């Protein structure tokens, strides 16, 4: 079973995001594999460990994303493909899915795993568009996955219960939280991963041209929170009255 895992590199969930000049300032940000993608990767490695085959991690971005591909190696991925694009932040989901579809042409994958959404943009579109481009089925939000040589059985949380989908292969499956707990990359794995080559494909060489349908105009930070106001005074009743007045007349919530 050959499995492809889509990996997005995102800022660490605790990183402080600074937006200025219409851009996210990347200095000082620690980059990690998006947590849902890490779950997808773990699932792929578990399937491989059970049934054999290979796990290939693919990521679109500048040279930094090679770090995440190395982490995927350290966890147990066999191959890594880096689709190189230095201005990848300006690509939309359609462009990224198109690049991946093109890059895997002629390669034999029966299962594609990806996180349900990236933890930075929360778009969740790339796996769906990839499915459409390739004509493969997509099952989203998997919480349990079983694969045999013919089909995939995917359990998904549904309103008040559980939905079970069966799909022919190839299939694209997106991982929900709770599907598994990803392993930690081990020292020995990291040491071995350093020697592994990463296949680099230039985005421009894929012959897609200007493929983005959506133009990102810019990023803006959320407005700062207004300062809190203290109601002073010694008399609790007067303070309560003032609070009620402010809520009714100034903020107009009561």
């Amino acid at each position, binding site marked *: 079973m050959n499995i492809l895992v889509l990996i997005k590199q995102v800022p660490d969930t605790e990183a402080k995001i600074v937006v200025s000049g219409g851009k996210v300032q990347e200095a000082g940000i620690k980059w*990690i594999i998006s947590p849902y993608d890490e779950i997808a990767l773990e699932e792929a490695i578990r399937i491989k460990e059970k049934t054999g085959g290979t796990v290939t991690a693919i990521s679109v971005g500048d040279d930094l994303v090679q770090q995440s591909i190395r982490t995927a190696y350290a966890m147990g991925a066999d191959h890594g493909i880096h689709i190189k694009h230095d201005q990848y932040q300006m690509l939309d989901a359609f462009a990224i899915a198109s690049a991946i579809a093109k890059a895997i042409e002629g390669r034999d994958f029966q299962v594609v795993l990806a996180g349900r959404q990236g933890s930075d943009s929360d778009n969740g579109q790339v796996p769906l568009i990839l499915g459409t481009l390739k004509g493969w089925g997509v099952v989203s939000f998997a919480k349990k996955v079983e694969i045999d040589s013919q089909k995939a059985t995917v359990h998904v949380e549904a309103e008040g219960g559980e939905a079970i989908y069966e799909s022919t292969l190839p299939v694209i499956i997106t991982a929900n939280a709770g599907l598994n707990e990803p392993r*930690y990359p081990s020292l020995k794995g990291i040491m071995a991963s350093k020697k592994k080559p990463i296949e680099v494909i230039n985005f421009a060489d894929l012959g897609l041209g200007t493929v983005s349908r959506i133009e990102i105009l810019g990023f803006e930070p959320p407005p700062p929170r207004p300062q809190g106001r203290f109601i002073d005074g010694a008399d609790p009743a007067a303070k309560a009255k003032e609070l009620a007045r402010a809520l009714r007349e100034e903020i107009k919530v009561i």
Partner: protein
Amino acid sequence: MAHLLAQIEGAVITGQELYDYEAYFHDKSGLSYTIPEYLVFAHSRSDIEKVVEFCMEKKKKLSVVGGRTGYSGAANARGGVVVSLEKMNRVLDFFKEDAIIHVEAGIITDAITELSAGEGLMYPVKFAATGSSQIGGNIATNAGGVHVLRYGTTRAQVLSLEVVTGRGDVLNTGSAVLKDASGLSLKDLFIGSEGRLGIITRAYLRLVPIPRSLVCVLCALSCLAALAPLAKLARQKASLHALEFWDLACQKILEKKSSLRPLFNRDFAYYVLIEWEAESQEVQSVLEEALSCSLIEDALYAETALARKELWKYRERISESLSHGNKVFKYDISIPPFRLSDFLRNLQRNAPEIYPTLNMVVFGHLGDGNVHLNFLLDEKEKAIEHNSLDLWVYEQVIAAGGSLSAEHGLGQLKRSWYAKFFPQNFHFQQQVESIFDPHGILR
């Protein structure tokens, strides 16, 4: 109600109602306590002054409680009056530029970090209970925790204190500056005093910048002998943040009681959690060296904030999972780090001779030699006399040049042992106590 307590701004609980507040009368030690006549939720320093005056006048014992997360019974009620500072939890001032914060003693420890995180600052003392412990209690016990190696104990964070002494004076211990060489350091007397000199009401604390990038690694070791050389190797990185360890018995109990999964595909004798303020590439060379000299068998990396939190859960949940369904004798001791391996080896060798079935479980802070020794007792062993076990442990601690209490304080648990092993020190401690608490209301 007694006259002075009636003037208190905060709440005073008395009579039958006290039974609803049982949790305020003891810490986590399981040691005995006496239900007080009054429980006071102080709202201000002046409330505390009134309580002290009341206790002096009526000759009542006064116990001060913070988050009650201690393990030595220092906060347990002794009848009389219990005063809680949990309502005194305000931030009074925040000097962002100087990274100094002025707080009331009842503020929850972790809340200080939450409040200062927006400025890129944090309060550096961190341990399993800082989500519910209060800063006043931390100061009164000179709390240590997992970052002592990098930032020192609570003592290193306190710039100045406001205290109501056992005689009712309001004492400001000095200026809120890092350097203060004005004779005897009064604040240092109150830090670690376990509420026996006075009641800490306010504190100026230093804050530190939030570390830029932390790498957390869990190492697997096959023998005790590797602990010290690994610690030495890890310390060569100046940016070492934490160096913690636990043994296989802890790991097994964690997996069973805390539903944490096994981390490696086989068992190892010891697990060492190391955290550096560094990039993972810098740490890599240290670990590769450790692997090549067979100090470690393997290591796991937690590079993301989420993974780091997950890995820390193993260390943080040890204490509670040991107590879960077991009778445990706990010892919080310090050993000079370079003698730690020998000390543990001796304990393991000697244990069977004294108590053939003694189930010893070890974890703690490898970096500073603070070991938490735990003896799990099953039904048969309940008969073991606590006193003789204490003596056996403490004699070996003293022989190794260690301290009877690393971070839990003397409390009720160790005061008599301290007096036995360090009679002269104990005598001077008592002298100082009688200056600040001449009527003995706090002791």
